[in-house]
């Protein structure tokens, strides 16, 4: 956790209701200064609401918002040390790039010469030198987002908010812009808060991630932690391509192993400091790249879990090849591996197969 005077944003008990709909349910969050922080979650989960509350575009129903230790929830956007980059349509169409970027500085009555200098410097930083005279409708999507970025950064605010800034761009451009954003953030050094539903984007740019779903802050941590050791079932389903099995606890041994009954078979998993009771409903997840197809007659070795199923389909995706296996309860399981040079493994549809993973690779979720 960041130190007290290094906290850029602190939110306490923040809630937002629209009539009966509870868009945010009492969120507590701290974001350190200078971080690239990502709010990741499904559409409608509350992440944009949270961002807009921080930015001042919505009033909270309850709770407090502290920006660099100042309580701001009664202030409109122009009273806060934040600036927002929007998804689209946010450049002023009747002004050219230069005037757009310099708008905020003009409002401050800064001398024209100084505005010009700063605007030029900022355009250079975002890679748009010489575009000053262009009009917004003459720019491509990626260029428009860069102008927005320049417009916000030139104000030298402490916190930059980005509301799904890359959602309107195509996949390749998105990847390039992700890296651009990261580079710029590292150079400027201010706090970035970036909202997205795209996990790859999130993991590319984030120093720290928070999963927001159903109006709640579910989990928070570094990309690697959330990918390899998700705490909540939801996180496991949202990030990465994981297989998730639901069941209930049948036994817990002294070394932290938990036995789970899936209904058609039993699995063992490490509790990872969680101590569920017998009979509790839990889930187990395992990364699909850590699961392998094994010989049909193999027995479960020590430290391995095995499931039987029927092979459904092989999907070639270039870098990876996925196998879809149907389990006895109808659930489809995913096995992913790097594509090898061979033309396939020759397994036919509906052929009986077995899959296994190391017990230690499984993760237990109690919620």
């Amino acid at each position, binding site marked *: 956790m960041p130190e007290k005077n290094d906290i850029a944003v602190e939110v306490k008990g923040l809630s937002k209701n629209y009539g009966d709909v509870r868009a945010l349910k009492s969120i507590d969050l701290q974001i350190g200064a200078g971080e690239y922080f990502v709010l990741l979650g499904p559409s409608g989960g509350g992440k944009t609401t949270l961002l807009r509350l921080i930015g001042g575009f919505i009033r909270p129903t309850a709770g407090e918002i502290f920006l660099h230790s100042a309580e701001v929830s009664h202030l*409109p956007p122009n*009273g806060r040390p934040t600036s927002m980059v929007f998804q689209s349509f946010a450049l002023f169409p009747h002004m050219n790039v230069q005037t757009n970027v310099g708008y905020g500085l003009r409002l401050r009555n800064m001398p024209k010469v100084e505005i010009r200098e700063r605007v030029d410097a900022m355009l250079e930083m975002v890679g748009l030198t010489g575009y000053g005279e262009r009009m917004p409708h003459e720019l491509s999507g990626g260029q428009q987002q860069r102008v927005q970025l320049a417009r916000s950064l030139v104000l030298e605010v402490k916190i930059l908010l980005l509301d799904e800034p890359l959602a309107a761009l195509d996949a390749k451009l998105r990847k390039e812009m992700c890296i651009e954003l990261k580079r710029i953030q590292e150079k400027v050094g201010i706090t970035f808060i970036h909202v997205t539903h795209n996990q790859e984007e999130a993991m590319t740019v984030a120093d720290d991630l928070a999963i927001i779903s159903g109006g709640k802050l579910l989990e928070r941590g570094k990309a690697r932690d959330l990918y390899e050791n998700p705490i909540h079932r939801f996180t496991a389903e949202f990030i990465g391509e994981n297989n998730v099995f639901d069941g209930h606890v049948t036994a817990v041994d002294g070394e932290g192993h938990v036995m789970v009954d899936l209904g058609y078979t039993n699995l063992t998993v490490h509790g990872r400091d969680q101590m569920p009771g017998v009979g509790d409903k839990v889930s187990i997840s395992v990364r699909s790249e850590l699961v392998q197809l094994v010989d049909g007659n193999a027995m479960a070795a020590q430290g391995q879990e095995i499931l039987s199923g029927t092979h459904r389909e092989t999907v070639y995706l270039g870098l990876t090849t996925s196998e879809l296996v149907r389990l006895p309860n109808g659930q489809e399981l995913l096995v992913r591996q790097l594509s090898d040079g061979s033309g396939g493994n020759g397994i036919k549809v509906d052929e009986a197969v077995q899959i296994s993973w190391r017990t230690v690779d499984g993760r237990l979720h109690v919620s």
Partner: protein
Amino acid sequence: MGESPGGLGKSGLTNPVSTSPKNKNEGRGGRNPASSLFVRYPRLGDTAGKILFAVPVAFMCLFFALPLALTYVWSFFERTMFWMKPGFTLFSYHNFFTSARLENFLASMGHSSISVIVAFIFGFPIAVFIRRRIPQVAQHRVILLFILPFAVSEIIRIFALRPFLQRNGLVNNILLELGVISEPITAILYTPMGVIIGEVLSFLPFIVFAGFLAMEAVPKYVFEICEDLGASQYRVFVDVILPLAAPGIFAGSVFIFVNGLGVALLPNILGGPGAVNAGLIATQAITALDFPLAMAVNAIMMTTLLGLLYIGHKLFDLTKILSPMS
């Protein structure tokens, strides 16, 4: 760039050590003293906004809703020589319902209904055509064409029908010259027919507008789907266009109907002797200084109108008309 305390208002911000501005409003000079006032006290801006928003609503309530509501009250007053005195009497209503005025009123309702139907038949297809076949950018301009007749005062348009439709007017002259008729037609002016013609010509643009707005509720891809499915033009019209555009069409129709009943000039100029509609009855009553009667007629008109709107709302959910505007 020095620091200055303006901007964050009463939040009591403690000063972190930095040389960049605390927020975006640092260094804002007094270009507009009013706006820096609103920056210092954001709440003030909110309240000012609220007051401002209330102005149109208050105005309309005071000068529109209130007088119309009072019409009902005044219709029960007693008539005096030059004015009226407060009281409660059904005299005016009795007067209206038992005189020839009632017949005329009902007759004018019939004429108005015919006008609505005729206007719809001639005007709605135009709205459909514009919406479907004309490229988006040009649509509003073509609609402007229909504002053209509207730009000419309606009284001129109504008066202008006299030399047009008269016994020795243009229409008759042309028809006589072409040999289509051997005698001038007298049935098109100073008759109910004349009133209907006048109403249709006056209000046709409104059906086009209303139809056009109503058609905005029908997305273009619907037509493409219908073509794809092989639906005939007739089916497309009846099954798709009509139901979706119904709220708008209904609103436009009510507009024409009500104006047909209410515009006194129409029967006055075009209707011939004795022709009246509700509006003319009311105006005549005022000229005769019988104010309660005028109010009574107004009240009856408004009740009819409200009744129509209510029925329409139950049938069509008139709020859908507003979708193109939000």
